């Protein structure tokens, strides 16, 4: 089955993906911070039974402790789980659909972290899917909920709707022209936050950023989504204008073609170099400098992360081995693309 991230969605030249995450807890158990491993296992089993009680096989059950470190980190590289979820894996589990668009982390910061991913800008669709699963679970489980302050979460920053909506954006031109920090200041005034692709404190490799709602209490899910959508569309417009401005410069066009040249001929490609060049090539493809499918580049950006390469090869590779495998995969992908502009 095709994975969700391979499609190119709405506003796909700038928006890579949309994610809705709902945090829920069971009334009967303390939050994970006050549970030992046995307690966590009990919570996981109770939620698994609730999810599978209709006899459907929609979700695959993954005991996090049974994975190799590479397999676990690979899940985080694909944004199916948080980086934090890869560290202490005992007593934690993951429920995952086949196309990987829905994942449910059990005993992360909260008992339930339900996450729906869609390609491109698709906040309503993603929320709709998350909402339906949440309503189904609500019928089968006793949620920790309070009429005054909403869904009760381990961290008070998530109280209320306990919904985090985010969009992943590719902003090479705004990044290159040093406008991200002023953008960050602006969006924070609007109750949103912008940060690197892998969440809190992570660096924005390849100019990939995520923007999400910060406030969850006293605002409806719909209002938070509308807000995020409106701001995202503005940023998308700014990025497009910035890209067009940037590409009026012959030196920038040259940089993009050179990046493509390296990606289609290199024999060793480190993760950093790949991300930097792929970002330039993606901008070239988005603005029609050459014909190259964005889907292909999106897929490479996901599949060429270090742990994902390890996991795909079923063993731990040395960085040099990995760089060779990466170079070959990227070369093949770029060279097999039809191109009438060369």
């Amino acid at each position: 089955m095709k994975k969700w991230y391979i499609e190119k969605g709405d506003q796909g030249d700038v928006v890579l993906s949309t994610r809705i995450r709902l945090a829920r807890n069971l009334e009967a158990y303390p939050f994970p911070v006050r549970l030992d491993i046995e307690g966590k296992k009990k919570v996981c089993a109770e939620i698994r039974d609730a999810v599978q009680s209709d006899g459907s096989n929609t979700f695959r059950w993954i005991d996090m402790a049974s994975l190799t470190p590479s397999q676990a980190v690979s899940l985080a590289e694909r944004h199916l789980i948080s980086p934090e979820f890869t560290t202490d894996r005992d007593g934690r589990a993951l429920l995952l659909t086949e196309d990987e668009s829905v994942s449910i982390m059990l005993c992360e910061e909260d008992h339930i972290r339900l996450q729906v991913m869609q390609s491109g800008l698709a906040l309503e669709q993603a929320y709709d899917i998350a909402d339906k699963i949440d309503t189904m679970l609500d019928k089968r489980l006793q949620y920790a909920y309070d009429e005054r302050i909403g869904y009760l979460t381990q961290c008070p920053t998530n109280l209320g709707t306990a919904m985090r909506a985010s969009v992943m954006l590719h902003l090479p031109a705004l990044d290159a022209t040093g406008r991200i920090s002023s953008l960050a200041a602006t969006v924070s005034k609007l109750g949103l936050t912008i940060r690197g692709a892998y969440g809190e404190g992570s660096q924005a490799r390849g100019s990939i950023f995520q923007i999400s709602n910060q406030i969850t209490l006293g605002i409806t899910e719909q209002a938070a989504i509308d807000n995020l959508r409106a701001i995202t569309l503005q940023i998308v417009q700014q990025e497009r204008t910035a890209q067009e401005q940037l590409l009026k410069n012959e030196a920038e066009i040259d940089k993009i073609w050179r990046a493509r040249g390296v990606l289609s001929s290199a024999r060793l490609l480190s993760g950093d170099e790949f991300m930097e060049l792929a970002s330039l090539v993606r901008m070239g493809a988005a603005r029609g400098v050459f014909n190259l499918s964005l889907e292909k580049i999106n897929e490479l950006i996901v599949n060429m992360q270090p742990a994902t390469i390890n996991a795909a090869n079923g063993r731990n590779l040395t960085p040099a081995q990995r760089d060779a495998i990466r170079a070959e995969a990227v070369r093949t992908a770029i060279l097999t693309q039809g191109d009438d502009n060369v």
Partner: protein
Amino acid sequence: MLCQNCGKREATTHIKRVVNGETSESHLCAECAASMGYADVFSGFGLSFGDLLGGFLGETPAPQNQLGTGSRCRKCGSSWNDIVRAGKVGCADCYRTFYDRLQPTLQRIHGRIRHTGKAAGSAGTHAPVQEKTAEELREEKIEALRKQMNEAVAEQNFEQAAKLRDEIRGLEA
């Protein structure tokens, strides 16, 4: 010191783990740390967002009427200090036990203190939040009026201030 993983970049992330009394140390550069799953390296290593939040919570002075008994959650045993220290709440009942003390923090984080989104369905619990006693409500009202009075004085609106003062006296009587 160079990163133990790539051996190229300066190690900036130093991780010391003590598992069952055995200490192990790793020194990584930011990139390797991120790629090995320590991207959110500050969580769980003592400098987490929880600590910042703890700072947030810690600024909240304990109201007089909450000292003494009832300062531990009856379900999970967390005290207010435990919550402040961890920056994390212990269980659903903690929110009910420490509801009043959390209000200023919620106000600071979210700007609002009342949920307006989706409600848990009939299967969800609706355990009642402790209603404020008449005494608490009266004190709150007096506090609010006193604030208004001070503002009126600051604006030299003495007529209004006098009116508020009389209202406060009436409530205090």
